[in-house]
């Protein structure tokens, strides 16, 4: 049930949110076919966040019609070069990274937030990402920010005691194991494919 509430809340929020439409003229002029996703720079306190985020970007980008470089392979190649974290990778010139991998464009993501705030009865989980897509000649062709929050819906059963118990149960579940992954997946899908920030379709999804 909780999941269903979560689902509908996210979908409603996702469709309703109005964000400024980015200027896509540079993107449309560049017409990239392939996107290299490099490990994210991490401003959150969760050291695992960049690895987890890395697993959530391939699907929405590939479903938009782009060739997405194998993220685990790219991460491994970069590690062999001595780049173990996103901050180091992001200091590299995008042109060099693109040339090394033969990529048309490089996606840089900064994790601003990846945290859970614990209140008495409910936990709010937040993710917040900055995205920057740079063409192989160094031109920035897309830029966006996406923040998503999830806090369990308080369902009113009409009975104060039942409400309290329900909230306590939800809080216990969230506290034991806050799961950021669905929220990160949703943020990526929306910013890439749904919101006004959505990127144009790539060559493998020709119908716009």
């Amino acid at each position, binding site marked *: 049930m909780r999941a269903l509430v979560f689902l509908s809340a*996210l979908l409603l929020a996702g469709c309703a949110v109005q964000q400024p439409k980015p200027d896509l003229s540079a993107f449309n002029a560049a017409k990239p076919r*392939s996107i290299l996703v490099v490990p994210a720079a991490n401003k959150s306190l969760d050291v695992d966040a960049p690895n987890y985020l890395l*697993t959530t970007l391939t699907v929405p980008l590939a479903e938009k019609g782009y060739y997405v470089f*194998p993220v685990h*392979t790219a991460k491994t190649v970069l590690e062999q070069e001595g780049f173990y974290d996103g901050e180091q990778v992001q200091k590299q010139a995008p042109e*060099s990274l693109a040339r090394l991998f033969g990529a048309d464009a490089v996606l840089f993501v900064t994790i601003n937030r990846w945290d859970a705030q614990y209140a008495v009865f409910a936990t709010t989980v937040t993710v917040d990402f900055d995205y920057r897509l740079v063409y192989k000649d160094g031109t920035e062709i897309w830029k966006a920010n996406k923040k998503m929050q999830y806090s369990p819906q308080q369902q009113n059963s009409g009975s104060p005691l039942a409400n309290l118990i329900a909230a306590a149960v939800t809080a216990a579940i969230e506290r034991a194991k806050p*799961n950021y992954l669905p929220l990160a997946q949703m943020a990526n*899908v929306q910013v890439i494919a*749904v919101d006004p920030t959505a990127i144009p379709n790539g060559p493998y999804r020709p119908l716009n």
Partner: protein
Amino acid sequence: MRSIFAVLFAAALTGCAAKGGLYNWGGYDGMLYGAYKDPTTVAANMQKLEAHIGKLEQGKQKVPPGLYADLGTMQLQAGDREKAQMNFRKERESWPESATLMDALINNGVMPKTKEGKS
């Protein structure tokens, strides 16, 4: 829980954008996540990925971008160079955009160098 994510995900892709999926991912993102979250599951997740690719090949379905290559990298890390090379070749054949990286992986058996520095 996995199925809930899948539903959520599909709903987000189709609900607002009203577009069908291009590929059968078979939980690739979840496999990578599992391997990162708990390194003792790397071998099990590698086998799952191999099995999913096998199923797609049998059904003559397109293998999504990156799956062959990431399987190859996992195999290389597990010490199986032959299978790794085979999968790098398959990635290259399926996706011409991958040629530069796959050629480096196939020809050298090692990763390419970045040391040309900033331009």
